[in-house]
């Protein structure tokens, strides 16, 4: 605990760096590269969101304000310099976004952080709506409905990098992702980072040991605004366009939902959340129109059954592995997963048929989903869905309590009730 950087850090961080370097070799192709770049952007955004929520106990409903405004500032900077109004390497555009996010946070964080808890949440919600409304009132800055476009390939080549090829951009964004993540991680180990967690736990006590809780929250929000702005600037470079959606409440909600899905209690949680965000918003949404419904379902399940998010679930399994107790529960996990998959299949069939009925009625009542020929006009398809739901759900109802009991037993036997602080995170 006295060391600057524990042995886990010396393993995890270099591994992350290697992973980022090798990822484009494993997943080649321009689409995969675009996905990877977007994951980096989402990871920085979710980490900055969690700096407020997980570490500071501040639930923000307007985090996209800082990312989005940072994106606009970055885009304006890019365009200004492309037009010849100065000299700025394209590689520093995300940093402009960060400074933009920081500048807006300097103003907006003041009213927000005077209060914690639900007042804080309400104020961020209000500010989010306010900024979104401004996008139509200030078309000069926000570019109206079309947004502001730019071109990162502006003829200036610095150090042999034009950022025209996607791979060059990927490595730039990967570097930003790694550095931002590392800085946010190190922040948790500074006096202010520690005090932020103390303010989350008990602001009254923080005041009685000499610190002003409002000031701690304010400073934390400046940092969160900065890193959110960096992610906005990264996005500006990647998409070469920023529009009003970037500051909207849907984007703010996405940061919240995916950070919670990833897990707020550990540093790795938002990283998983960022990856998940891209997988869902890009892949799942392309695969099915009903993706938001599935996402909502998954979110509710995680909040109710795994409040620690994916990272929390993984951390718990890792502890059972370390204790040699996972193997005994594995068959139960398998049974539960099997039942869940069959039931979920049934639900998905019904959902897809409903969506098909509403959205594609003109193209006929028959379609295929997951290789299964379905027809919304025949009762057989609906009965299949119901049958799958029951075939998975009924045994699932029998398996779930038994699996949970065995898990609780193993957990207790491993003495994990009173966890030492060192074991809180995934690492």
């Amino acid at each position: 605990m006295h060391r600057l950087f524990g042995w886990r850090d010396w393993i995890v961080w270099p591994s992350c760096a290697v992973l980022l370097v090798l990822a484009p070799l494993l997943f080649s192709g321009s689409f995969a590269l675009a996905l990877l770049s977007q994951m980096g952007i989402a990871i920085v955004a979710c980490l900055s969101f969690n700096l407020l929520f997980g570490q500071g106990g501040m639930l923000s409903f307007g985090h996209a304000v800082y990312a989005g405004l940072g994106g606009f500032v970055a885009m304006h900077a890019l365009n200004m310099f492309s037009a010849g109004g100065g000299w700025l390497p394209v590689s520093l555009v995300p940093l402009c976004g960060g400074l933009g996010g920081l500048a807006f946070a300097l103003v907006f964080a003041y009213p927000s952080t005077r209060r914690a808890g639900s007042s804080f949440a309400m104020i961020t919600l209000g500010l989010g709506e306010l900024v979104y409304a401004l996008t139509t009132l200030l078309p000069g800055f926000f570019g109206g409905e079309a947004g502001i476009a730019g071109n990162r390939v502006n003829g200036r080549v610095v150090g042999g990098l034009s950022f025209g090829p996607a791979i060059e951009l990927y490595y730039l964004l990967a570097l930003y992702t790694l550095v931002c993540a590392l800085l946010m991680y190190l922040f948790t180990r500074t006096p202010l980072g520690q005090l932020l967690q103390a303010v989350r736990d008990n602001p009254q006590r923080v005041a009685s040991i000499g610190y002003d809780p409002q000031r701690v929250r304010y400073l934390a929000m400046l940092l969160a605004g900065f890193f959110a702005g960096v992610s906005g600037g990264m996005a500006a470079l990647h998409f070469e366009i920023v529009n009003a959606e970037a500051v909207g409440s849907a984007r703010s909600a996405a940061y919240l939902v995916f950070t919670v899905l990833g897990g707020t209690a550990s540093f790795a949680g938002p990283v998983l959340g960022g990856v998940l965000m891209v997988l869902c918003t890009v892949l799942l949404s392309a695969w099915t129109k009903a993706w938001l419904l599935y996402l909502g379902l998954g979110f509710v399940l995680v909040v109710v059954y795994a409040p620690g998010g994916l990272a929390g679930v993984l951390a718990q399994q890792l502890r059972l592995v370390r204790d040699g107790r996972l193997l005994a529960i594995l068959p139960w996990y398998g049974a539960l997963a099997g039942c869940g998959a069959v039931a979920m299949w049934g639900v998905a069939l019904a959902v897809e048929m409903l969506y098909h009925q509403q959205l594609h009625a003109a193209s006929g009542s028959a379609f295929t989903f997951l290789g299964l020929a379905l027809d919304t006009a025949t009762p057989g398809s609906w009965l299949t869905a119901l049958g799958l739901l029951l075939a998975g759900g009924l045994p699932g109802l029998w398996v779930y309590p038994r699996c949970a009991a065995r898990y609780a037993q193993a957990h207790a036997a491993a003495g994990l009730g009173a966890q030492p602080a060192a074991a809180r995170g995934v690492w």
Partner: protein
Amino acid sequence: MTPPPALALVALHKRFGATEVVCSVDVCVQAGERVALIGPNGAGKSTLFNLISGHARPSSGSVQLHGRSISGLQPFEIARLGLARSFQISNLFPQLSVYENLRCSVLWSLGYGYTFARLLGSLREASARTDALMERVGLTAQAQTLAAHLPYAQQRALELGITLGSGADVVLLDEPTAGMNRSEAAHFTALIRSATAGKTLLLVEHDMDVVADLADKIAVLVQGRIIAFGAPQAVRADPAVQAAYLGAVV
């Protein structure tokens, strides 16, 4: 010229609506003195503590720390002036470890402020002070345990440790031994005595053994008024005190 008292309450009043909870309280605590504040439940002891530490504002009157008025200051400003308090109900950072709880409490007085340009692991003085503090309150073996997972008596010890962390010279303890059994209370009293040696102490306590053990003077608060203040023997002999409060005990 004699130095000003470490802590002086001057004509202190606190009203909640029409109810007078603290009524013209005048108390002077000299530097190095140990004063126990006793009184029946609802007498206003915790309110008085809140008035002193800045968690509540007096309706009138003033609180002086080393001759300087601290009324109207924020709790964190008062803490920086060298006044530390504990709470009746343990008031910890539940999701931080014992070590982290105590380290938070030493940071301000070491001058690190709100810095995020230095890593905690490199602050040797903070680590050394935290280790010493942990040793002093007997929680070294629990260093990595989350505060939320500590048993009750150890939470009280941690509460005391956080209070002492800043090195404040005026210490307010709100029922430090409440809820402990006899032997725990005796052990804890010895701990408080050694840990607050040389400091000015104001303590709310119901356990008369603890009071007798720790206090040089006793102040008796009944219905928001100080009805007696002086050496323990004198206070015990005071007929008003016997009638109002100690009658059944003495």
